[in-house]
Each structure stands twice: as C-alpha cells, then as structure tokens.
C-alpha cells in the first residue's frame, strides 16, 4: 500500500499526486515511469514519474482523467492508499550535452518532460520548450518548466493563450527561421508526436519520442506494449519508452492504443 501525501489540481481533470515510495524515489531517472494498480479489481496502468524527492522518499505523478482508472485515481485524497506501485520502469532518457535541445510536449506530456528538461539543462544544454494544449486552462506546469528552459513557446489550439495553433506550427517556424536544434524530444499524445516527427524529418533533426502504449506487467513479460521501430518489434516497457521518432510506426501505435476503446466505455459506465 502506498500513501498519497499531497494532491494538486493542475487543470480541469488534470491532477498531480505526491506518493510515498522511497525505493522508487531513490532509483528514479528522467524518462522513467511507474505502473500502478489502485485496488484489488483495478487494472495496471503506466504513468511517467514527473518528479521525485530522494530525501523525502516521494515521487510525483501527473495524470489526466480519461478513463475509469485515472478518474478513480483523481477521486482519491491525501491519506488514501494506492494498492500497488512498482518501478521505476523503462530505460532512462539519454542525458548528455547535445547543444540545443527542443522539448515539444503536449497535454500531461509537459509534466513528463519536466525532469528531462531539468536534467538536460544541468549538463549544459540550451533547452527550448514548445508546450501545447487545447486551451489555456489545460496548460500545466508552465512556471516549473520555465525555470529550466532558455526559451519557452506556448501554443493553444483555440488561441486562448500563447500562439494559436499546434506545437508543430511553432516548431516548423523556428526551424524555418534557421535556428539550430541538435535534438528534439517529444512527449504527448501519439498523434502529436507523429506530427512532430514528420516536421523534424524534413529538417534532419534527430528526434526521440516517449511512447505511451498499453501495458500490463511492464517487465517485458506480456508483449502488449510492442511497437514497430525501424523494421523491428520492440517492447516499450523494457526497450523504451524513448525511441527514434523517425523510425517509429505511429499509425500502428495509435491503432493499438485504440484496441480496447469499446471495453473502456463499458468499464467507465460500470464505474459511474
């Protein structure tokens, strides 16, 4: 059982929890994730570790309430306990000096990008962030991420703040303007990462995407998280979650993410 120590509402349906996980906190690196199961009848879902505190022995997770499990998680409060949390899973992000790195993140991907931005900054990179959301109220963690980036661009689909449009519009513009970007890291919805990869491919900018397929055990045992990368089947849980975005078959990822859409609706109805 893992106790919830802090809870924050970051936006409509977007919440963060700080939970008591000393073993995981001690080992967490940027880009890694945990798998949690809320209760006896719950499913196992992966969530990126948005931050950690080794001294306090805590980790932070940020999530959007989109299905039964995330809604249930969002309804939990400080003092409540999550039945199972396991991690840190996945390979950490490759943190080294690249020169200028652009982080292109959407939705709750911003929270997941935060420790990566911080680590990249700490080794001397110039870090640019392009953060997008559907509208102003869904933008999260802007102040936190600001502290670790040299330049911040914000886009909203509806233009309620920042530039109206998509993160890819902003990315394309700065690349067109001739800004040198040595590496792009993209985290967010699969459709957004696919679009980012298409833009950077044209400009030959090495790009990594942090993939978010369905997982169960996340130890390499079941193979549900398999993705097709450069003509090879890879397991996201142990080989990823980050892969060369120019080699990822995003259409397949999107297809597999939708595998249980009908069942998810049933689960949701039973819950509410």
């Amino acid at each position: 059982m893992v106790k919830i120590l802090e809870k924050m509402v970051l936006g409509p349906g977007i919440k963060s929890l700080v939970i008591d996980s000393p073993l995981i906190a001690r080992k967490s690196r940027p880009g890694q994730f945990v798998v949690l199961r809320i209760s006896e009848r719950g499913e196992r879902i992966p969530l990126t570790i948005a931050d950690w505190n080794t001294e306090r022995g805590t980790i932070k997770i940020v999530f959007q309430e989109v299905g039964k499990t995330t809604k249930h998680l969002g309804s939990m409060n400080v003092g409540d306990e999550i039945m199972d949390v396991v991690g840190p899973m996945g390979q950490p992000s490759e943190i080294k000096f690249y020169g200028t790195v652009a982080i292109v993140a959407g939705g709750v991907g911003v929270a997941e990008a935060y420790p990566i931005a911080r680590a990249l900054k700490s080794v001397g990179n110039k870090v640019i962030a392009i953060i997008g959301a559907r509208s102003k109220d869904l933008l999260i963690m802007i102040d936190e991420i600001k502290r670790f980036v040299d330049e911040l661009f914000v886009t909203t689909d509806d233009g309620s703040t920042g530039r109206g449009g998509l993160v890819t519009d902003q990315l394309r513009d700065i690349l067109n303007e001739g800004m040198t970007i040595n590496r792009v890291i993209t985290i967010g919805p699969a459709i957004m990462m696919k679009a980012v990869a298409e833009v950077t491919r044209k400009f030959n900018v090495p790009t990594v995407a942090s993939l978010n397929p369905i997982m169960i055990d996340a130890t390499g045992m079941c193979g549900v998280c398999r993705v097709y990368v450069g003509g090879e089947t890879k397991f996201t849980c142990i080989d990823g979650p980050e892969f060369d975005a120019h080699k990822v078959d995003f259409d397949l990822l999107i297809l597999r993410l939708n595998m249980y859409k009908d069942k998810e609706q049933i689960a949701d109805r039973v819950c509410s």
Partner: protein
Amino acid sequence: MNGATSSKTSPKSTIQRHQVRKRSPTERIRDFDEVSLGFELSQALAEAKRCLQCRDPPCVRKCPVEIDIPRFISQIKEGDFESAARTLREKNSIPAVTGRVCPQERLCEASCVLSNIGAPIAIGALERFAADTSKEYDLAIPEISLGRVAVIGSGPAGLTVASDLRRLGHEVTVYEALHELGGVLTYGIPPFRLPRDILTKEIKYIERLGVRFEKNVVIGRTLTIDELFDMGYDAVFIGSGAGSPKFLHIPGENLNAVYSANEFLTRCNLMRAYKFPEYDTPVHIGDRVGVIGGGNVAMDAARTALRLGSRHVTVIYRRTEKEMPARIEEIENAKSEGVNFMTLTSPIRIIGDERGYVRGLECVRMKLVEPDSSGRKRPVEIKDSNFTLNLDMVIVAIGQGPNPLIRQTTPELKTDEEGYIIVDERCRTSKRCVWAAGDAIPESETVIEAMGGGKRAAKDIHRYLTYDSARNSPWLDREFT
C-alpha cells in the same frame, strides 16, 4: 468402490487404476472452476492399496524433488492423511500444486513397476488428495541464526528455495515483481487447472514458515543484485522465470487481437479479465480464435478462449499431434471441450482488416522429414499448399525467452547466446554468491523441474553459508565458456 474396504489385494485391483472424477465438458467450459475433482476418499484408499511398496522405488528416483512416494502412499492407505501431507511437505512445499500440474505420466508414474502388468499408480492424484485433505500443517520453525538470503521471484523455483532454506534456519526474503505471488502459477496457469485458493493456501504455508515476501519489487529496476548484497544479504537466488514471449516474426503480428499467450493468460489469470467489467482489465473475445503452438501453454490459452465465449478455437501446430509437447491429458481435455486441432500447418501471414484487427491467417501445409538435432521429426513446407483461415483473433504460444532485466543490470552474470543464465551442477552462476534455477536457466521446462533445480540450489546455498570449507574453496570448479 472396488478394493476400498477389502484388505486383501486381488490381482484385478492391483491392475486397475482408479480414474479421477472430472466435470463434464459441457458444464466446465461455462466457467473457470477446476476441471478435475480429484479422488474421493474411497478412491484414494483403494488406489493407495495398489502400491507395491517397492524396496528400491524407481518412482522416487524419477522425482525431481525426491518425494518419498511409497511412504506417503502407505500413510494414505492407513488413513493418516496428515502424515501423508507431512511426508510430501518434507520435500515439497506446494504438493497441492504439483499434484495438479506435474507431468507425472513422464516422471514418477512412468517408472512405476505396475506399468508392466497394468496401469501405474495415480501418484499425482494421490499427492493432490493428501495435500487437499490435510488441514493443519505441523510447523517446526527453527530459530533464525544462519544466513540471510534474497530470493528473486515467487514462482515454483523461488518458493522451493525459500521454504527449504527457511526450514534449515536461514532468514529468507522473496522479492516479487508483480502484485501477486506465485509467478507462472498465478499469471500463467489458468484457475481451471489450478484454483487460486489452492495456490494461496500453499503460499500461506510458506509464509507461516517465516519466509518474508516483498511484492512490487523488480530486481533489475527497483533494486539490483549488488544492492541486495549491500543490504546485507549473504546469498541471492535468481528464480525470475522465462518471461519474454517469443513471436513468429511474420507480417501482421502487431495487429490488434494478436496476443502473446503470456499477455492473454496474464490478462485472464492475474488480472481476472474473465470477470470484466467486475474487474477493470479487459480482454478481446474473438469468435474464431487460432492458437499457434502445441505446448501446455497453447492448451491453456485455447481452453481459456473457449471459456470466455469464443465459438471456434483451433490449435495450429506445424508437426503432428504425436510431437506436441503438451501433456496428453491436457490435449484430451482440450479436445473434449471442443478445441479443434489443425496439425502439419504453419502460419505465414496474419491478415488485417481496415480497422487494424485480425481478419484471417494465411497458412501453409507441412510434412515431416527425418529428425533434426532435437530428435523430433523436422517439418518442411509443402510447396503451393497455402490457404487462409478465417480468424478474428490469434494467440501466439510458441514459447518464451529469458527476461533481460537482471542480465542487463548484472554484468558479471554470464548468459548463453539466448540470454539464459549459465549455472553449474550446483546452480551456481558466474557471480559469487548468486545461484539460479527454473526458467531463467537453459533447459528447465516444467514446474517440478524448476523446483528440482531450486532444491539443488538450496542445498548448495545452505552448505556455502554454513561451512567455512565451502566458503574457502573456489567459487566455481570450472570456468564458464
């Protein structure tokens, strides 16, 4: 019941083996409750009487965990079921499990002297009977005084090492990556072969011995083996299992509704997807399901699909039924439940529809030619024999490779070209004070073989932790190549 009350052993009662009761196929495919009902009291007593009580029993020699089989059978015959269970547990902490899933027909029962004049003793069924019937277990738990041992994985190998070492007076902690204990017994073997409450009862017994269990700890991620030593453990046993599903590497394998047997069974067994939406984890229920492979896992997957409500389930295997690695009993169970078998058939392409779901499976007919290095006849394609099966779900059950997590984080651990951990006869690995057995090492196939390896490891760990002479000798007799 013949022979149940009579004290004299007639030739007929010696020859005739008592059959365990099974639920009828039409009834049992509607739920996930156990298929076999085991022996009734009178059957068990009569079957126990058939045992010739050989002085030099071949059955014991064939048992990987060396159970004193004639003794426990004679205790059943005397009606002393508690003693029979105690005899079993002296060597085997999970007899209710092995009584159900052990391939007795090619181990103890295969060597039974009675086979020469009739049918062998139903040792497995008797083992199950004694284990299920006994109520309280005598627990003589020694004071903890010897070494501290970390066991990685709570499957058959890990449970065996843990209980053996605990009984010898060591402090033992088992680390399990998943949220439930039991390893393959939990995520792999369906409840209709091994009910969950039976497994829980067996693990509770090991807990009462004083073994500590830590769930949700992934060795190789949460902690490394070196960190376990830093925490003060004197010895580490790796029983992490196989745990990496093999795929066919044919086109269409990543389509929706193509499952590894591991995923399909994990969803159903560990996550209880058969109770969806009462439980949150869903599973796809195909109408026409193809299961590729001929082992026990393929049978488990096929029979699970039937129980979920799939109407047509076909096992597709490239050799003939004779070469299938599955237990004959499980093949028979699958057949009587309505699973179809298509042998000498090999899949070459999975066909998808416009939504990315399985629509069909292109196969080719095979024929068998002279045996290969494995001794089994080698299947070769028959030219231009391609045909397409109309399927909407495919389960790939062609085996597993070793899990890479421990290997990746323990560089001193030598592995073979496939990634299995290399060990010597004592189950020692190339890393000092680290032992391994079960599916993490090459050529361990069944639950009982994993347990046999665990027993060898436990014996050597005990010797190493107890005697200076063992600690002062070289770690390995020979270098691993």
